[in-house]
């Protein structure tokens, strides 16, 4: 209505040149004080997306550097090197424990992350967990279809990592004083090379458990399928000490 004089002039125009204005179907809402509502959830989703993009970029750079052909061999030096690369990127990101969990699920969404290579992925998640601000991190991974390897790598003292679901091979290797809880099963080489700390597996554990472990304790509430060559430390099966002990010998599979 701000151009009323013009409107009068318009009315004099032939109808074909100046058709009558269409009625505003939302007329009555003109009086409604419309403010573009800032829904808190939108803000949370937006900031989460920003963090997730950074985490995803770090993982992609790790793959670019360490798994150029999308093949990654588990060797002592490749693990160390890949972890160092992961550490470098992770240190630059501000994230929370929930973001780590979101990343784990994003790994299975090929539209968000094209390649899931369980080794580097596990090392990257380990680096994220080790550098997270929270002392206790819970990763609810029971819905994941893929078992991720190398989770809990070099878990430092003062950290507690709880994994709901099963884990893959090399779980908790090189643990450095932290506490790793797996609420499902763990596969082979669990706790290999750990120095101190505690690993608790609520269900069963695979072969080579505690291979070359130098200290710390592994507690298994289910069955231990096989122990590795253990240097020092303790392994418990259903509260019963199986290493050191006479009943069980290294590399004896049962």
């Amino acid at each position: 209505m701000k151009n009323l004089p013009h409107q009068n002039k318009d009315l004099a125009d032939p109808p074909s040149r100046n058709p009558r204005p269409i009625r505003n179907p939302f007329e009555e809402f003109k009086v409604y004080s419309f403010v573009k509502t800032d829904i808190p959830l939108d803000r949370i989703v937006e900031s989460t997306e920003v963090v997730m993009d950074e985490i995803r970029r770090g993982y992609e750079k790790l793959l670019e550097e360490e798994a150029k052909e999308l093949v990654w061999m588990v060797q002592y030096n490749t693990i160390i090197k890949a972890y160092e690369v992961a550490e470098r990127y992770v240190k630059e990101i501000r994230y929370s424990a929930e973001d780590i969990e979101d990343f784990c699920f994003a790994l299975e969404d090929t539209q968000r992350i094209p390649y899931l290579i369980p080794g580097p992925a596990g090392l990257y998640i380990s680096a994220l967990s080790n550098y997270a601000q929270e002392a206790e991190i819970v990763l609810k991974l029971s819905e994941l279809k893929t078992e991720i390897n190398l989770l809990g790598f070099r878990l430092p003292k003062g950290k507690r990592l709880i994994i709901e679901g099963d884990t893959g091979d090399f779980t908790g290797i090189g643990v450095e004083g932290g506490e790793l809880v797996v609420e499902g099963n763990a596969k082979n080489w669990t706790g290999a090379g750990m120095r101190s700390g505690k690993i608790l597996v609520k269900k069963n554990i695979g072969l080579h458990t505690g291979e070359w472990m130098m200290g710390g304790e592994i507690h298994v509430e289910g069955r231990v399928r096989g122990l590795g060559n253990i240097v020092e430390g303790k392994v418990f099966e259903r509260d019963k000490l199986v290493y050191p002990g006479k009943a069980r010998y290294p590399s004896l599979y049962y």
Partner: protein
Amino acid sequence: MEAERNGYQKQIKAIYQFISEHLYFNRPDIEVKGEHYNSTILFSILTGLKKGKELIIGEPGLGKTTSAEFVCSLIYQIPLGVIWSSEVSGHPEQTEEKIVGRPDLGKLNRGEEDVVWTNFTQLPAKIVDEINRLPETKQSMILDGVDRGNWEYLNEMIVNEEYSLFATANYQDGGTNTMIAPLVDRFDVMVESRYPGANLAFMVGKGERKDQLLRHPKSERDFFRLLKSKIHYEKKLPKMDEISNGFGEYVHGTLGVKPLRREDRDQIRAEMGDLLMDLDASAFTRMLLAEFSFCERYGQKRSVETCEEGCHYTGYFCHEIKNCASNRLPFSIRQYAQALAWLLQDPEVDIEHVKSVVPYALGHRVQWKEEVLARKERSKRDDPFPIFLAKDAVRAISQRYREQSDHLKDALAAGSRIFQGEELEPLEGDHPLYQEIKKDLEGRRR
């Protein structure tokens, strides 16, 4: 609540009270803002006040026709005998001559063409008994009259400026026909005249001849004489009002209840018409209309098209129905919600009025998909199936509205601003109405 201005609401409530206490015994089955009413009487009264069209369904002998007769008699001040004489009964042999009018045989013998109009066409209160016994081809005969109040015979026409239509329908049996969709859609509301329960039914059997209460032989004779007379229809109307006023005074004097004069009805309608819908009522109604008309794939619902598998809007009512809401639906909702708000002396039409009215305006108009009918058929309920389904729909849409009313109103307000030329983006949301807003704005931008 607005202060009562002229006592009309009190007068209407007294009529309601009189009917429910002396003429039509039934249980209250609808609650609006803490007040309990019987839906059959309430909607019949609102129909009479709003010049509406009401379909009353129910089992035989449960007061479908008599409830309409009593309401018509008291709202329009017409003696019961006259109302009976004007009723059209639906049966297969019904003819246009019995419904609308016939040639004036005396004049025809003299070579002149003139029409003798039936009482049905001339009176403002119209009752069609057992409308679904009319064959489908004959239902079309009353379409135009029902819709616009235009009654044509030979080359003559009378136009009812004021009229309400009440039609009764039995449930399907051997003698009934399907009501054609255009006719069904013309009814503003559908109510069920229900069994009153064993105790009230016992009272019905015990009572005196309640028909006699609204009879008045002198007024009836005067009415018949006037209706039969050859004077022009428009000239008959003031005379009809005179006789009606006489009957009204008689009823007021003997029964203590005051029927409505023509000027009362006009005044009431004007007051109702002044009541505006508040923003929640408007947004809720739009939301409901969107769900009963929207189709993302085909542009709108059409009874000849079926939903696409995996459609994003599967959770909304557009996915559960076959047909599209007609333009008569919002009109009916607005009219009856206004009437209800007026009766309750509220300053504007709010969402509660709309929610109370919608099941009765929607029930007969929706064609549900077979799988929906099969899924809900055995649900425990008090209402007839179509009204039950409509109430269920209103409940679900109310829930959705509660969740997103602010955002929805924002989206409509943004739509208004964009429509007026502001550079804004339409708001996004997960409901068909947001898509409808965008469509309206696209149409504007083109």
